[in-house]
Each structure stands twice: as structure tokens, then as C-alpha cells.
């Protein structure tokens, strides 16, 4: 089978302006993946399926990944001119200070596609697509028109991660009910506060149960909303 670099150059030859990037996997498996741009993803996917050499006709698996906002602290050495009094005389001296800069790298949601070829008996080729952010710009092009087997898995990702797949024929929640508002697999999901009674509580569960019992107000999202509503009505009166 072609290496990732060869696949990348094949894609770039067939689909001009595809903008595919290689994401190396440093682990022992060495399964490197291709990061697709949202705009040209459909064309690239069609090429991967229809190209006679690659013939990736089988989509085995679609996964969702949530990458939350990451705070990165960097230590930078800064040289400044400082006025100091040396032997009673004011002098300008260069001083090197180490400063910590903090910046927040915005998070995003990611869909990972694992492709194989039944015809050529090779694979996997791994595709990744990333959303702009994880709040409002969460659209990705659906690859269901290319591989039908993506349909339910993209619905599941929509349900649990909240990625909106544009072009999906039937994008509804698949595991949770329709009126459900959260996305349970996201890292910032707040679980419902079910901790009122724990007969054999231990570890994390014990901590959550004690937290529930200690305060008048629970820790669950329901309790938080109730508290919010209470303060809102209190302000109205």
C-alpha cells in the first residue's frame, strides 16, 4: 500500500487545492493520518474511494474526539533595561527576567474516519476533519454520500459530541432522546446529579455523594439551573 506521503501527493495531483496535511503518529503503530480541510473534503473522499490504485471502498469506523481549550504556559526570557543605583550613581543596566506567558489554544471537535479497501486488501487510511471551534462553528461535511456506513456513526457523533454534519441525509439524535440538550461525551459535560443515595459508595462516587449531601444545593446541572431560576425570580420581585 502507498505510504501517507504518497497518498497525499496522489490526492494533491487529483484534487488541486485540497490542502491535505499529514498528522504523524509517534507511537509504535505508526498509523499516520491525513487532516482534510472542510471545504474540499467531499472531493478528496470521492477520489480515495474511486481511485483504482487506492480503492478505499470500506469505511470501518468513524470516531469523535473533543479537544477542549488548552492553556499553554511558556517561559520566555526577556531582557529589559532597568534603572538601578550602583554606587550612588543611577545607571541603566540590562537585566534578563524569566516571564511566564499564558495563552489559550482554542479547542475543536474532530471526526476520525478509518478506511480500508476490500478490493485491494489494504488499509487503514485515516482521515481527520476538525471544526473551527467547539461552541458555534461545529459544522463538518458529511461523508455519508460517499460511504453509506458513515450514516449511523455520524449521527452518534452528532448526538454525543455535537458535530453538525452538513449534507447528512437524516441527522437526528440516535442514542439520547430528541429533547435532550447536552452532548454527553464532551469533556465539559455535567452529569445529572444522581447521587442522593449510594449504598456502596467509594472513590469518586463517594466524593460526589458526599458533595451532594453536604450542601443544600446539589451539584448537578439541574440544581444549578434551579438556583439560577430562583435568583432570576428573586430579582424580579
Amino acid at each position, binding site marked *: 500500500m502507498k505510504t501517507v506521503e504518497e497518498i497525499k501527493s496522489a490526492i494533491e495531483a487529483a484534487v488541486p487545492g485540497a490542502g491535505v496535511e499529514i498528522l504523524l503518529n509517534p507511537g509504535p503503530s505508526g498509523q499516520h493520518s491525513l487532516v482534510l480541510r472542510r471545504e474540499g473534503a467531499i472531493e478528496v473522499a470521492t477520489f480515495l474511494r474511486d481511485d483504482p490504485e487506492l480503492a478505499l471502498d470500506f469505511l470501518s469506523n468513524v470516531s469523535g474526539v473533543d479537544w477542549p481549550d488548552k492553556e499553554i504556559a511558556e517561559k520566555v526570557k526577556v531582557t529589559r533595561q532597568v534603572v538601578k543605583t550602583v554606587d550612588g550613581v543611577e545607571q541603566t543596566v540590562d537585566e534578563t527576567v524569566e516571564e511566564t506567558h499564558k495563552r489559550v489554544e482554542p479547542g475543536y471537535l474532530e471526526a476520525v474516519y478509518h478506511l480500508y479497501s476490500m478490493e485491494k486488501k489494504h488499509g487503514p487510511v485515516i482521515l481527520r476533519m476538525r471544526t473551527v471551534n467547539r461552541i458555534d462553528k461545529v459544522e463538518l461535511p458529511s461523508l455519508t454520500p460517499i460511504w453509506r456506513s458513515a450514516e449511523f456513526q455520524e449521527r452518534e457523533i452528532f448526538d454525543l459530541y455535537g458535530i453538525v454534519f452538513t449534507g447528512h441525509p437524516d441527522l437526528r439524535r440516535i442514542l*439520547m*432522546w430528541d*429533547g*435532550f*440538550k447536552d452532548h*454527553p461525551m464532551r469533556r465539559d459535560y455535567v*452529569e*445529572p446529579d444522581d447521587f*442522593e443515595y449510594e449504598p456502596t459508595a467509594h472513590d469518586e462516587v463517594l466524593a460526589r455523594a458526599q458533595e451532594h449531601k453536604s450542601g443544600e444545593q446539589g451539584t448537578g446541572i439541574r440544581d444549578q439551573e434551579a438556583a439560577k431560576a430562583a435568583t432570576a425570580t428573586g430579582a424580579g420581585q
Partner: protein
Amino acid sequence: MAVEEGLKIELGKQGVFVTSLQELYNWGRRSSVWPMQFGLACCAIEMIATTMARYDMARFGAEIFRPSPRQADMMIISGTVTKKMAPQVVRLYNQMAEPKYVIAMGACAISGGPFKQGYNVLKGIDRYIPVDVHIPGCPPRPEALLQALITLQKKIDGQPLTGEGRPRFLDADAQGEFPVPAQGEHDLEPTSNVGVWPVPLVVK
């Protein structure tokens, strides 16, 4: 007026069968407990095994699994109740005709079991409907389900027809219908039926 046990045996030897209306009535009820035909998870496989030739639930009069709640007397909650499924389970229970009984089969039906901390797992069906017999196990063996059925039959046998402790269908004031929880934006609403499941006090 109850007949003495010794006198009953003595009369039986003479070919006279004496009983009370309550005993006869309960004997009839407990000998034909028809379960409802539905399974929720892997416990259902054990439930099916219980009905088949090796364990043969028919010996206890509970062989006819009814596919309609209208014809069933007993509901076996056989498996994990998800929050998506819970309203349907409560609705099916409401649709059953009295007298009706519930067996919570396995760790999941009792408390959520190994999936207890899941965001979509109901932590015990007894939060919404009254459960008569709980069977522990993951999944319980068919013998355990038979034991639960026998326990339920003993419970039916012991129910008086009048006065305190009479079954729900003979008590006009008893609660007959149980509110179906709504699927809210974050969780089921309400999260439990306080009339059925008062939040247990944990003594420290």
C-alpha cells in the same frame, strides 16, 4: 373463619375438602402468574432460559409470556433500564391490568449495576414503580428467577383480601396509576417518584 390445620387434614382424609375463600382466591392468582414478554438486556437471555425445557418455568404456572400488557400479571424487568427506555417501562406497567407484580431482575434493574454511573442509566426501576421482588446477580441464574417467582407466589398467598395489607386492586384508595417521567433537557423529570421511592436515609 379460618379452619384449623389439623381439622383440615382430618377432613381431607375423609374426602372432605375445606378451604377459605381467601385461600382459594390466592391459590388461583398465584398459580397463573403470566409474565409480560419483554426483555431489556442480557438478563432477558437468562429469563428465556428459565422458560425453556431445562428450567421449565411452566411448573410454577408462569409459562405463558404475553406480548400485551393487558393480558400480563407480572413484569420482569430483565436488564438495564436506560433513561430513554424508562418512560416506556412505566407506561407499560400502567397499561397492565391489576393485579400486577414486578420482579426487578439483576443488578441493573435494582440499582443500575455496573452501568450505574452512566449518564443514561436509571439507577433502579424502583424509583418509578413498586417492585415486589429484587433478584441480585449479573445476570442472575435461572434458579434465582425461579426463586423470585416462588417468593412472589408466597407473597400473593399471604395477602389478605380485606383490611390492612390487602392487595392494591382491592383497595379503592390505593394508587393505581404511576406517573410517567418526562424526558427533559438534561435528565428525566422528575428523577424519582417520591410516593414509590422515598429517598433512603443513609445512617452514618
